[in-house]
């Protein structure tokens, strides 16, 4: 049952991901990405990480994709223009896909790559403890990355020479 569901969710995730790429309109593509995230959350659930599944939905679906949709809709006010793409790009993409797939088959040697010491699904407290002890340094570095990203985004978004307060009146 669990295995069947695992493959079902996996196929669903792949199908959704393919749709993200092949949709010509931005909003449906974004919706397919949302579906893809759902299937991935389902995989996390099956693997015994309900916490990750909930976070996945909350952060990616509930916040990030809403922001994506906001931006798409903000830019797409005029018309539902299809995304232009060129035939030779599709050929290149397909070729890359086939190559990578072949490489993966070769790499796995016909059998699934299996982690030798697969960790057991941890409790949330264990997850948190690892985050604040073993992985404390990466955790802190992440905050620097985020601050850099925020400052970068703000600087890029600011109109040149303008003030910080566009709508303050």
């Amino acid at each position, binding site marked *: 049952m669990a295995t069947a569901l695992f493959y079902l969710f996996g196929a669903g995730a792949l199908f959704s991901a393919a749709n993200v790429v092949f949709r010509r309109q931005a909003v449906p593509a974004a919706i397919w990405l949302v579906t893809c995230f759902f299937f991935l959350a389902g995989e996390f659930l099956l693997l015994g990480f*309900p916490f990750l599944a909930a976070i996945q939905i909350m952060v990616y679906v509930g*916040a990030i994709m809403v922001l994506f949709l*906001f931006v798409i809709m903000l830019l797409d006010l005029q018309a539902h223009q299809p995304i232009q793409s060129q035939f030779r790009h599709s050929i290149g993409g397909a070729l890359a896909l086939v190559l990578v797939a072949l490489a993966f088959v070769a790499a796995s040697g016909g059998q699934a790559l299996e982690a030798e010491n697969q960790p057991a699904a941890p409790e949330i407290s264990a997850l948190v403890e690892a985050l604040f002890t073993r992985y404390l340094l990466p955790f802190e570095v992440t905050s620097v990355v985020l601050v850099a990203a925020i400052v970068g985004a703000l600087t890029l978004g600011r109109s040149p020479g303008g003030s910080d307060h566009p709508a303050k009146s």
Partner: protein
Amino acid sequence: MEITWIRAALTLLVGFGLMMSLAAGMSLVERKLSAFIQERHGPNRVGPFGLLQPMADLIKFVFKEEYVPNSVNPLIYKLAPAIAAVPAMMTFAAIPFGFLDGQPLVIANINIGVLYVLAVGSLGIYGIILGGWSSNNKYSLLGGLRASAQMVSYEISLVLSLVAVIAVSGSLNMSEVVAAQDHHWNVFLQPVACLIFLVTMFAETNRHPFDFAECEPELVGGFHTEYAGMRFALFFLGEYIAMVVMSGLMAALFFGGCDVPFLDIADTPWWLGALAMLGKTAFFLLLFVWVRWTLPRFRYDQLMWLGWRVLLPLSLANLAITGLVLALLGPEGGHA
């Protein structure tokens, strides 16, 4: 095995019935109360005191023509109302109504209940966004756009305020959070978080004074301009159920849930506990209506200002102070 199935079916039935009747009752109460506030009569023709008005409304919605405008994106247009209503219904499953023989009275006793509610609850916005987008109508699109911006701005503060509560209670399980509040409700331990949650609760349900997504004077009907009949009713239902869930969350997470003042949770009869929970939920539902007919709507930049420059720093500071205090109190701090 069979007992479990029957029990599950019963729980579902009772829970669903409760949710639907709360939502339907809410539509009547809203109209009655608004009439009272504005010194009108309100609905009083269908049944005694207009009590059957929700039924009449339902029948009207069901028999209305399901009109699909030509210019819309049909699939998403038809899907959007369901997307708006279903997540709200799903979150209701995690609201605990008390304890029966030590077992929590809840449809789904999820270990990470708070996260579940936040995760699933954050999906309802998609109904509004997609409804607004697929309608292919400027007003609808603007409504969807506003809803998404507002959602992103307030979701963070909402989550952060709840994280402080979780830190104090030491659990993500809703029933355990309720049990931890025996005699000392979180509203007293986390007054700032409670205030932030109160504000964001209105924003998340798109209720007045945050109802920018529909906003009749500016956007006609906002995201649901192009909707009629049962589809419109689903949007409506989603909003009301979301209100019920948010009120339930408020009651359970900040006001002790089934805890009756001056009684131990363990000693409280289950019906009294459930009644207490229902009463608290009803209070916040009434608050929604009360606020709607009392306060004017924000201006849009005020909305953004409040979200990003007041609530977000406040909730971050609240979380930081909570963490600091808990760390100073040591592992025995808080309820744990």
